[in-house]
């Protein structure tokens, strides 16, 4: 299943890639594959902006504006003015178990 096209904030600088393969290992959507000892983006629209690749790229080749793709969290952040997070109903409670 794919979500909306051309919306992801994922950006990748192939020239910084050292070919360690971490991004392929951590991406749950199969956005990256190794091609000629370097990571390559297979399909940008598969990206769900979880941020695992950017957090684990030691060479700073990947950046993404990571966050939760959750309507309730985003509406909540619009009202309260914070970053969208899974704490939808205040402290001590959560929508995800």
């Amino acid at each position, binding site marked *: 299943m794919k979500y909306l096209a051309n919306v992801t904030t994922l950006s990748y600088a192939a020239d910084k890639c050292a070919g360690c393969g971490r991004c392929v290992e951590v991406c749950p959507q199969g956005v990256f594959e190794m091609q000629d000892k370097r990571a390559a983006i297979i399909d940008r629209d598969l990206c769900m902006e979880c941020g*695992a690749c950017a*957090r684990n790229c030691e060479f700073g080749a990947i950046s993404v504006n990571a966050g939760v793709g959750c309507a309730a969290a985003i509406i909540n952040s619009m009202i309260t003015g914070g970053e969208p997070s899974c704490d939808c109903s205040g402290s001590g409670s959560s929508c995800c178990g």
Partner: protein
Amino acid sequence: MQIQTLQFVKKVAPPWTAGTVNTPVGSVFRLSSDWSRPDYWGMIKSRSGAFRMNYAVSPGLYAVGDPTKDSDVFVTANYKLTFDMLRRELKGMQAWILVLDTKSINVWCAAGKGTFGADELVNRIVTTKLDAVVSHRRLILPQLGAVGVNAAEVQKRTGFRISFGPVQAKDIPAYVQAGYKKTIEMRTITFPMLDRLVLTPMEINPAMKKFPWLAAGILLFFGLEPQGVLFKQAWFGGLPYLILSLASVLGGAFVTPALLPFIPFRSFAIKGWLIGLLAVFAVHQLLHLPAPGDTIAMIVSYLFFPVMSSYIALQFTGSTTFTGMSGVKKELKIGIPIYIGAASISLVLLIVLKVKEWGLL
């Protein structure tokens, strides 16, 4: 007294353990690999949202089988359901399980919040004296934990090298057997119908919590007559709208998630709107609605309820495995003005309907 009670609780072995295993730094609980009745019952209750927040196990080190200083260390969250799935899949293996304190939240959500993160992992490695329990320096983390854990940072701080294992615990035996290599299936997350269905109670519950307010509003509106609120009027006038509301909740919170890949368009708002449209049509056919000539009631039905279903369906983006923040923001940017507009126009039309009914127009 308080302290005594705490110590007593700590010494009692949880029901899902089977004895203890000695390590150079003390004894740790050995886990039972089988689920007992309370484990199944706990899963059902936590899935239905009965006590999600307190379904936890104590963080720390546990043993599976008879692990040695060379055995693998699997890291997990302290949400009991996550922990239960892991111990069940490790049946027959000799391994260590390091449980992080994620406040009884699953790996993926906890990694997003940062509680399944490098700081907690480093802290847990130190407090369990893991470096004295095992002689190697390898950790296997669930792949979805990578959202919160920077592997290079953990290695720098502790010397432990992280491998991110498969997404799902059930693939661990095959992953280990393949020499810690993942197939593409093991590292990509899917979202099959069964996975979607088990999440729907948590979509229906919050929607139904707001339902009494909507129902009260509908009944009050239809019962309102120049001479006061009439119960009979409220019931007969409001009932079709109550049924339409329920159909919209089910359309957005159950049918849309269940049939997700089969409904056209990628936008959840459009998917939910289409299902809502079908739901309204079905209810109209079944109840022979609206009464002939009742154009305004017809417009309100088709204007408001599909939009309500759309809004509820959009909430499911919080439970999926593939929706990103930028996409949901885009949907909301377009959707919210439409939702507010449709609801406002519907309200105005209903007021017109009421005024006509009272013979004031």
